[in-house]
């Protein structure tokens, strides 16, 4: 049995998305910037996709900018907010310690350019405190950027509360919602979100398309990619019409089936959590219920994550880990360290991320294989014995 349990990394493209994109490859293949009918047909598809996405976010079409993906949208959001803030003498940016690298590395760059970056703690549960955000906001705060849900441990942040706070304090608020979009309910108006990032391939669209929502009147976007007048001049480059059309179709499909999917996936998630918790010396990472419907993240003491992934792959289960050996560095994931796990425990992490395509039979397979693989690796681990003895 082959089980794909790495949906937080990327997802299978839905048939609905494929059906939507295929005509863009062979019929409406014109360049939306062209004057002729081929171009104008493509332009109409582009604007239809924009309207659809806006509708499902409770935004206006002109507030949607298409990008190459989540990373580009995150870069553009942060850089735009920083430059806008700088003009008003505001050079303080608030974020969290466990953001995606698309945020953290952009913040590093801004810090080198003279901005002051403050990363808030996320504590053991992996959830930022609204009062910490409130205490951190200053007169010169240019931006608060806090992810909607974490990519590794799936914890959902109090976005509506932070949005309300930022709006009241008149501070720009961006959220990287790459892991949340299409998986939980998002309403940019209701939640007072000024800027929001989405990535199509996380909700069953092809890779290579992303969305940056920017509330009208909140901030003027700066270009990350210079070029033609596409996207109101804010993002050069011929639009990826097939990708964008597929993304709109996939987003609509995910949102239309949201409640049903959440119920189904949450039930599978909880069954996996309850099963894996029975493994001795296992630790569930992140808050138990305030997490994405499909996210399961455990640490198993005494074993190493990459070895675990290889052996699970051998048994037909595709998963992910925050161990150093999978990150290509010496340190385990900054997310696991941010929730207070020591290095040696963080090395043994496993993330399983489910979606609506997973089945109960696949959950059965996970519950059969994971404990056996953990036991096998522990049997060859020189540290497992001392852990058991409590040394």
């Amino acid at each position, binding site marked *: 049995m082959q089980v794909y349990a790495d949906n937080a990394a990327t997802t299978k493209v839905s048939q609905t998305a494929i059906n939507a994109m295929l005509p863009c490859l062979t019929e409406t293949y014109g360049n939306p910037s062209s004057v002729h009918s081929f171009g104008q047909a493509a332009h109409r598809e582009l604007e239809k996709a924009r309207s659809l996405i806006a509708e499902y976010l409770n935004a206006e079409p002109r507030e949607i900018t298409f990008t190459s993906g989540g990373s580009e949208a995150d870069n553009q959001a942060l850089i735009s907010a920083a430059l806008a803030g700088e003009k008003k003498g505001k050079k303080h940016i608030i974020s969290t310690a466990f953001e995606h690298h698309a945020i953290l590395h952009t913040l590093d760059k801004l810090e080198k350019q003279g901005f002051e970056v403050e990363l808030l703690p996320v504590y053991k549960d992996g959830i930022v405190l609204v009062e910490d955000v409130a205490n951190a906001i200053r007169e010169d705060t240019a931006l608060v950027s806090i992810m909607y849900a974490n990519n590794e441990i799936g914890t959902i942040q109090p976005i509506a509360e932070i949005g309300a706070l930022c709006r009241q304090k008149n501070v720009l608020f961006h959220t990287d919602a790459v892991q949340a979009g299409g998986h939980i309910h998002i309403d940019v108006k209701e939640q007072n979100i000024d800027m929001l990032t989405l990535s199509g391939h996380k909700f069953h669209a092809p890779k290579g398309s992303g969305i940056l929502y920017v509330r009208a009147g909140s901030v003027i976007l700066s270009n990350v990619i210079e070029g033609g007048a596409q996207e109101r001049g804010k993002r050069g480059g011929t639009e990826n019409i097939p990708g964008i059309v597929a993304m709109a179709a996939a987003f609509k499909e995910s949102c239309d089936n949201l409640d049903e999917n959440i119920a189904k996936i949450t039930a599978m998630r909880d069954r996996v959590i309850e099963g894996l918790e029975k493994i001795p010396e296992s630790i569930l990472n992140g808050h138990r219920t305030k997490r994405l419907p499909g996210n399961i993240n455990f640490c198993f003491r*005494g*074993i*190493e*994550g*990459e*070895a675990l*992934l*290889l*052996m699970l*792959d*051998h048994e037909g289960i595709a998963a992910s880990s925050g*161990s*150093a*050996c*999978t990150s*290509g560095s*010496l340190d*385990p994931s900054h997310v696991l360290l941010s929730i207070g796990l020591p*290095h*040696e425990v963080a*090395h043994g992490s496993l993330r399983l991320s489910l979606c609506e395509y997973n089945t109960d039979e696949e959950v059965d397979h996970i519950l059969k294989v994971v404990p056996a693989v953990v036991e096998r690796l522990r*049997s*060859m*681990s*020189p*540290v*497992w014995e001392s852990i058991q003895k409590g040394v």
Partner: protein
Amino acid sequence: MAANYSDIVMDHFTNPRNVGEIPDADGVGEVGNMKCGDIMRMYLKIKDDVVEDVKFKTFGCGAAVATSSMATELIKGKPLSEVVNLTNDAVVEALGGLPPIKVHCSVLAEEAVKAALYDYYTRNNLPLPAGIEAPCDGDCAHCCGR
């Protein structure tokens, strides 16, 4: 990940040779540390200056398990005069290569064998052959490249 490992590495990872412990070992060596994410422990049974038996236990990634396994294969049944000259390059070669970022695992395997030899020689008050020194102090920085 899996795609970057040779078939031999995957074979030694999924079916590691000589896993376990030797309760009455003549030499035991442990290198690496938990913080770095790799620990290897080697047990040697030595008779008439020959490695009669060898077992290992490893906490670490796929390459760490595979290099430990291959190192035991390379030294089992070999005279000490040969074993003291084991190099990480020989382990890498026998495995059909390792991704560059995993080469430090082979260094650790060589050091684990040498740590066990050091233990054997010092336990028996024997002179240390060239290349056998006090084992790594648990600071992986020199192997992990930082």
